[in-house]
């Protein structure tokens, strides 16, 4: 990277939390830029606050009182004399009002303009603009449906199954798959109320559902001088409840020709909206490898690291440089894809309890390292994961010369990874990575639900049980010898202590004497 020019920002406000706030903060520090962060009442001890140059409290845990509060964030921008704001993903990242408010306040929003966002942010408006640019679409409405009667008519016309989607949506919120006419009414009501709750906008539109498609997306980058490039695709077919769980790049089914065709469509989509900065064009891909435009995400994606690894670029550095007015430092022909990268989204959720969120105190954290392993994490040992936000803890990314090596490194890293005290989905990734369909790259958006329906064929390990029994006694014996009162396994969260039934804690205590 060229060293910062005179026009480069001196201070960037990061309007986010969790791993993405830390990831942006690191880019700021790499570029010699001061990182200003904001935090809610429950995030004072969060990692992004610990690592920041300046940190400002912005209110209560509820996002509407803090991370979604435009006035408070702009107030901090003014007080901290920040030149620019990086919104991360989620929260205000795709909020055109916020982008406009930043522009009005004279602080640079690191992302597209409000106008480009408005064209794209509402999926239905995006659709109208794209149809003109000759972008391939799944059949459906290009506007939100006004009434149940209209929904009935549209669904009958495109044919069941249909998908209901929130116009302002993302991340699976406000989405419903409808198999038959009799399910439509309740699904429409549910999608509307979820859309209203999640985005403050109940507009819902209808598309023909492509059953078990692949979900493949194209990263684009556009500077403010009319240059737009694509940086290759990401395969994001592994989803649960429409939330991505594992992503990889490149897609195992996309060859150079398909990549070029998808990339060129993605660039056309971006250019049709005068798009600037980083963005992602999502496609559904059917079994014949036909691809259909799904939506454009006008932000940095959670899964951006896999593209960074195979393209050898730092997308956050580039976002910042583009926002500062620099030209893209390379042309389309300079972009080279090398190797293979896979990302696992490590969530605080309980696999034995239908993947319910599992917030709480992290009593032990052992993170993997070594060749080809990257961790973008927002957690640390001793920190309590709050109940108030998305359960993403960290992203574990494996890189290798090819897909096989990336899987091998990731498998090895997952075996090193340990998060104690809360439930996580780490074991799910071990299972995915050893699945024969996954290894054969037979992926679609129904993959994970099918995998989870099958019983896990894990051989009982009697030796491990014997080792566990010996260790249980030794923990008790060593704990009582070294600490007097009990082994460290007893240091659960206060809530856990409270819950612990009397007879158990009593017997444990006595066992440790």
């Amino acid at each position, binding site marked *: 990277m060229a060293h910062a020019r005179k026009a480069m920002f001196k201070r960037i406000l990061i309007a986010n939390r969790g791993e993405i706030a830390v990831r942006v903060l690191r880019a700021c520090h790499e570029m010699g830029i001061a990182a200003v962060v904001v935090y809610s009442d429950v995030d004072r001890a969060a990692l992004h606050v610990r690592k920041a140059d300046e940190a400002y409290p912005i209110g209560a845990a509820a996002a509407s009182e803090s991370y979604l509060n435009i006035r408070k964030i702009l107030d901090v921008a003014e007080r901290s004399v920040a030149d620019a704001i990086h919104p991360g993903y989620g929260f205000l990242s795709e909020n055109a009002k916020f982008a406009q408010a930043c522009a009005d306040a004279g602080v640079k929003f690191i992302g597209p303009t409000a106008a480009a966002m408005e064209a794209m942010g509402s999926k239905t408006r995006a659709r109208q603009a794209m149809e003109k640019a000759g972008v391939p679409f799944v059949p459906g409405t290009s506007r939100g449906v006004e009434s149940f009667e209209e929904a009935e008519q549209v669904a009958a016309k495109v044919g069941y199954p249909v998908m209901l989607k929130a116009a302002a949506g993302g991340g699976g919120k406000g989405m419903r798959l409808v198999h038959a006419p009799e399910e439509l009414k309740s699904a429409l009501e549910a999608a509307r109320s979820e859309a209203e709750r999640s985005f403050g906008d109940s507009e819902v539109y209808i598309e023909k559902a492509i059953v078990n498609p692949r979900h493949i997306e194209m990263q684009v980058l556009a500077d403010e001088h009319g240059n737009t490039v694509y940086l290759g695709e990401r395969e994001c077919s592994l989803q649960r409840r429409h939330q991505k769980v594992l992503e990889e790049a490149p897609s195992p089914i996309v060859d150079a020709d398909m990549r070029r065709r998808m990339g060129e469509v993605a660039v056309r989509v971006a250019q049709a909206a005068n798009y600037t900065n980083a963005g992602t064009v999502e496609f559904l891909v059917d079994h014949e490898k036909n691809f259909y435009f799904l939506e454009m995400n006008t932000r940095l994606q959670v899964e951006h690291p896999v593209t960074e690894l195979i393209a050898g670029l730092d997308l956050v550095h580039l976002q910042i440089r583009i926002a500062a007015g620099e030209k893209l430092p390379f042309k389309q022909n300079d972009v080279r894809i090398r190797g293979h990268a896979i990302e696992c989204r490590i969530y605080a959720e309980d696999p034995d309890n239908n993947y319910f969120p599992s917030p709480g105190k992290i009593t032990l954290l052992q993170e993997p390292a070594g060749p080809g392993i990257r961790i973008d994490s927002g957690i640390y040992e001793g920190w309590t994961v709050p109940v108030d936000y998305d359960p993403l803890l960290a992203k574990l990314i494996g890189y290798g010369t090819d897909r096989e090596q990336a899987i091998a490194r990731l498998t090895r890293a997952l075996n090193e990874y340990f998060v104690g*005290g809360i439930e996580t989905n780490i074991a799910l990734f071990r299972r995915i990575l050893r699945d024969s369909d996954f290894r054969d790259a037979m992926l679609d958006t129904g993959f994970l639900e099918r995998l989870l329906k099958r019983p896990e064929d894990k051989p009982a390990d009697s030796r491990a049980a*014997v080792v566990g029994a010996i260790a249980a006694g030794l923990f008790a014996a060593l704990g009582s010898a070294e600490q007097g009162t009990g082994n460290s396994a007893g240091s659960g969260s206060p809530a856990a202590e409270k819950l612990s039934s009397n007879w158990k804690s009593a017997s444990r205590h006595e066992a440790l004497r």
Partner: protein
Amino acid sequence: MLYDITINGRNYRLELNCADGRWSCCLDGRDFEVDAVLARPDVLSLRIGNLAYEVKSERVANDLHLWVGSTRFAVEVRDPRSLRGRTRAGDHQGPSKIVAPMPGKVVRLLVSEGDEVEPGGGVAVVEAMKMQNEIKSPKRGTVQKILVSEGAAVNAGDVLAIVE
């Protein structure tokens, strides 16, 4: 030292004796020589013969877990000489408490007092970390009591309703 240990539902009796930093273990009559180092709190490095293991300990809610490699075991350790190390009887009969599995907010109650519920039937919807989760009844029965109202904040383990 003598321990009664239950691992994933199976009972073991373990006798431990320490001499010169080495542990002689007798597990249900089988003898093992063990070299144990507590690498840090909650992390035990074991050599059983020359085989090396790392075992991690954690508490989740009211359960003690040990991890041997990537295999997790639910563990209970009791001192057999203690009278209090006995399981309480009767946990499986009578009224079932429907508890919140995680902290969150009750967004909807799906039943009223006096309603009949089937096994797996929804009782309440709890929202946590932006996800809505239906809390289900483990058995058939009548909703005897509802202890929370819509909009209430709940902690993990809080009783939402009682089904009998």
